[in-house]
């Protein structure tokens, strides 16, 4: 339970329309000037106080009743998005007790914390094989909405992979996130007859900038390339073996789409720069990639979508770039891949 003295009111909001709430004899409408006296959050056990305080701070800046309603909604959504509460409900009451202002409000959040440990099992059909994925998740590890998850997947082609992820909001801000991930994965490139197995770790920090989402990350991956068949072409065979990539990446993404998978409006603009080899490892290159996706509704349910991807890379050591670092055309379900079916592409 927390309570705090109401802060000085900031400039009030516009009043648009009436909103009537009947409590005792007072009539509230959207344009009433109010002051939030107390905010109480009930039902916490593991979650730490300072995290909740940070999420609820904006409530004290509300000047009119409408602002209070909207801020309450925002805070409720934030708490739900944190992934640690099963349910969040809000009660707005006039403030009581000593130190209560005439137009003061008490806001009470009733939260129910969710189960900390959960497990999942599902199947996924992806590149060239289906796989069974078993996962376990530990939510709210240290009380500030951190999450630890472990996934193990086993494919029909005997490939196995695992993924251990830990992420934590930085400074209690849910939009800023620090992620640490350790993984093992394998991918088969049937057209080029090789298979790449990667084991490594990624540390990244994501935060919202003025124009879009920015991410800085470091990856260290130990990759193993081996040929799938005895008839793999010699240039691919020459690249077989082990390599270590240690790279620093910066990603800028501005996403105004309404949905990630089948968007109906909005656009995505993504810019990626990768510098490998400057922090160790034995591959050295500079890579830049840009991606843009535009979606526009034409009429009724018809949506026009356009997706462009391009990139440039240069090897900074004397050797040419390895096959598993190169760009590959499309993916397995793309039309482009089917056209190249009968050539042994290097990409």
């Amino acid at each position, binding site marked *: 339970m927390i309570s705090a003295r109401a802060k000085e009111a900031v400039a009030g909001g516009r009043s648009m329309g009436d909103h009537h709430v009947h409590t005792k004899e007072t009539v509230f409408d959207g344009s009433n000037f109010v002051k939030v006296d107390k905010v109480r959050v009930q039902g916490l056990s593991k979650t730490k106080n300072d995290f909740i305080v940070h999420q609820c701070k904006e409530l004290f800046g509300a000047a009119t009743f409408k602002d209070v309603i909207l801020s309450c909604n925002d805070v409720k959504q934030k708490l739900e998005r944190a992934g640690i509460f099963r349910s969040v409900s809000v009660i707005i009451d006039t403030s009581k007790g000593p130190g209560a202002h005439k137009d003061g409000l008490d806001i009470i959040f009733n939260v129910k914390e969710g189960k900390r440990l959960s497990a999942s099992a599902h199947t996924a059909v992806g590149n060239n094989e289906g796989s069974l994925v078993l996962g376990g998740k530990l939510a709210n590890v240290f009380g500030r909405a951190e999450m630890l998850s472990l996934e193990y997947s086993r494919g029909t082609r005997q490939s196995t992979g695992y993924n251990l992820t830990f992420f934590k909001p930085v400074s209690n801000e849910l939009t800023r996130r620090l992620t640490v991930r350790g993984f093992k994965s394998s991918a088969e490139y049937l057209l080029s007859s090789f298979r790449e197995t990667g084991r490594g770790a990624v540390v990244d920090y994501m935060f919202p900038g003025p124009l879009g989402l920015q991410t800085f990350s470091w990856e260290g991956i*130990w990759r193993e*390339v*081996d*040929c799938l*068949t*005895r*008839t793999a072409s*010699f240039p691919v*065979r*020459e690249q*077989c*073996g*082990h390599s*270590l990539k240690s790279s620093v990446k910066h990603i800028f993404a501005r996403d105004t789409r309404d949905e990630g998978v089948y968007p109906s409006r909005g656009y995505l603009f993504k810019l990626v720069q990768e510098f490998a080899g400057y922090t*160790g*490892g*034995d591959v050295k290159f500079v890579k830049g990639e840009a991606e843009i996706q535009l979606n526009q509704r034409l009429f009724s349910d018809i949506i026009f979508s356009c997706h462009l991807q391009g990139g440039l890379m240069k090897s900074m050591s004397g050797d040419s770039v390895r096959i598993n670092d190169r760009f590959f055309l499309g993916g397995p379900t793309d039309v482009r891949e089917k056209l190249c079916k009968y050539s042994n592409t290097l990409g």
Partner: protein
Amino acid sequence: MRKTYSKMLQQSFIDFCLRNLQATGMDEEVELFQPFQKEQITLPEEAQCMAVKTLLHMCNLQFALRLRSNAEFMSPSGGVPFIKVGAQIVSEFDPIVEYLDLKGISLSQELSGAQRSEMKAYMALTINRFYNAEVFLSWYCEAIAEKITKPRYGAPYAWPLNKILPWYKQQEAKKYLKVQGWLEKSQDEVYEELKMACKALSDKLGDQYYFFLDRPSELDALVFGHLYSLLTFQLIDDKMADIVNSFPSLTRFVERIQDTYFAGAAAEENS
């Protein structure tokens, strides 16, 4: 998918054989791939590579030597060395001998049936005793493994791969020794096995120049490869070299082959 590839492979192999059955000599350049000689190669690999190089010299085949740090992973069977002739890749000593035989190049064409079976038996002896002893000494004896083999094997890689990869290889080598029952032997027993194998070879060679007739055969190439590596590869002590040196006929054999086939190469290295 496996069956299709196997059928494709069989068909292309048959086509290949039909085309080249009567041909002698090579139309295309032969390239030999092996790990880096000075810093990377380990004792068992060195012995095999030397054997193949000697074989090619004895067959009078010109070849280009290509040093690659990932030669072991490039090879289809995981063993070095391997040769590339056009689009064909053949790895390890026995398959290379068979391949050359199909091309009409053979060092043992004039041997009788009994001599050829003896040759195969002694080749099996060399592989079985010498190769296993080399793997045992390089990878299982902790002193040698930590000081020499592992640093060499991990030399081309950055940290931490230069620690992880030699460890994996050591586990593989231990498994190989375990399935053949060599893991239960002690180091002294292994030296004893080496000695008995050297004695057998020395008795077989006797005073002759080569093992069979007056011409080198595949057995000579294989034995030379292993003996030369045992004599020249630097381990922590000279026990191996001493064992070989205690059989003068073998040391003479090694010197003779070296002078005949590698004198030119040695001169190039020195100049």
